């Protein structure tokens, strides 16, 4: 059994052609997911049961089921429903890219909202009381005190979620999208060389993850600079 290096040299560029799609999926889903997460967070901390409970239910369902199932429900399942086919959103759901983005966004939104909530809960109560004592309103405390502090607290876990999201984009290959994984699977089917192809692909993902982590680390260091002790 040989390890065909020439094959790797040939196919890596082909796989890298998919990196654009990978990043489109990642960027779009991360952005939309974050917006959804903030909405869910506000619903959760609103104190009103008719906002809190639906949000909790949503988070429970989306964190309790595999993301692959969610992708399949949207891509294969939605066309079964007439009201989807006839709605104005149909062009999104008819297209595998649209379905993938929707599924990934809905999924990451659930996880990120819990991460943000963890940050909010981690804000020192004393700091908020000081804000109260000074006469700051609830909204003012939330904007000027809770949000900046909670963001810094949530950043490590959020970074991990972005990395998970990157890995989840590979599942788009199961609904015909030609991201890096999709291209790789096609090549493997043709060449019967799973080791060379998949290991190279894994290395590509690991490199991407590495840079993503470094980037997030930089943001963490910048935002957390006030937590460094001096002498």
């Amino acid at each position, binding site marked *: 059994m040989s390890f065909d290096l020439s094959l790797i040299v040939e196919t890596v560029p082909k796989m890298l052609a998919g990196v654009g799609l990978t990043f489109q999926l990642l960027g779009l889903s991360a952005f939309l997911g974050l917006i959804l997460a903030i909405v869910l967070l506000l619903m959760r901390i609103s104190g009103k049961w008719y906002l809190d409970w639906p949000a909790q239910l949503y988070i429970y369902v989306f964190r309790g089921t595999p993301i692959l199932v969610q992708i399949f429900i949207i891509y294969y399942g939605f066309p079964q429903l007439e009201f989807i086919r006839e709605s104005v959103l149909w062009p999104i759901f008819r297209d595998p890219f649209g379905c993938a983005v929707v599924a990934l966004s809905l999924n990451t939104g659930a996880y990120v909202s819990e991460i943000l909530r963890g940050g909010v809960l981690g804000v020192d109560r004393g700091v908020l*009381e000081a804000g109260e004592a*000074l*006469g700051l309103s609830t909204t003012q405390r939330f904007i000027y005190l809770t949000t900046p502090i909670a963001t810094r607290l949530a950043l490590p876990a959020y970074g991990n979620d972005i990395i998970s999201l990157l890995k989840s984009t590979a599942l788009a290959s199961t609904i015909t999208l030609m991201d890096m994984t999709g291209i790789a699977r096609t090549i493997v089917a043709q060449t019967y060389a799973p080791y060379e192809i998949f290991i190279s692909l894994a290395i590509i993902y690991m490199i991407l993850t590495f840079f993503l982590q470094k980037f997030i680390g930089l943001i963490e260091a910048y935002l957390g600079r*006030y937590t*460094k002790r*001096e002498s």
Partner: protein
Amino acid sequence: MISPQPLIRMQNVGKHFGTFQALKGINLDVIKGERIVVCGPSGSGKSTMIRCINRLEKHDEGRILIGDTELTDQIKDLNAVRREIGMVFQSFNLFPHMTILNNLMLAQKLVRKTPKAKARDIAMRYLERVKIPEQADKYPVQLSGGQQQRVAIARALCMKPEVMLFDEPTSALDPEMINEVLEVMVDLAREGMTMICVTHEMGFARSVADRVIFMDAGEIVEEADPETFFKTPQHERTKLFLSQILSH
């Protein structure tokens, strides 16, 4: 002489946490310019009492009036009341993500709507009052405990409150830093700032207090001027407390 209307009036105030009665039948009038020290064993309700004054805790029985405004659930503008009451906490509670200067300016801009430049001036002036103007651009984590607490006092003062509440301001400090904070508080007292101070620092009480109040098990047991309080305490509980706290 007509006695001035009290700034703070507490009438038969009570508060419980679940089944635990934290405050019972508290009656207290504070007039402008009065300096009151509250002492007592842990769990006596001292902190709870002053936290009810700016409604960080909600009282369950009785009435609390700040000036003409009564503190209730229906109060229209609680923040207007809180503007006039400054509070200093045991754990300082500075905003960790902001510079010292911004700590002092935030409430001025948001609550008193002071323009930025003026807020800055006021902030620097009070920083000089507490003797640490050079720390203006540092972050709280870079300051010592004593410095942080002085910043906290300055932060409260920037709002030009009518009355200052101190909740065990030196209890979390290392011994060598207690004095720098007490000095600031003594200066404030000598200038006539109305204040209620929960503390174990009896030296402070003796030098500036108009009244010393002893609390135990949620009630005010005894109150008197410092001379009388320390020399001739009336109640057994007071005597016991004083013997414990003054002997070690």
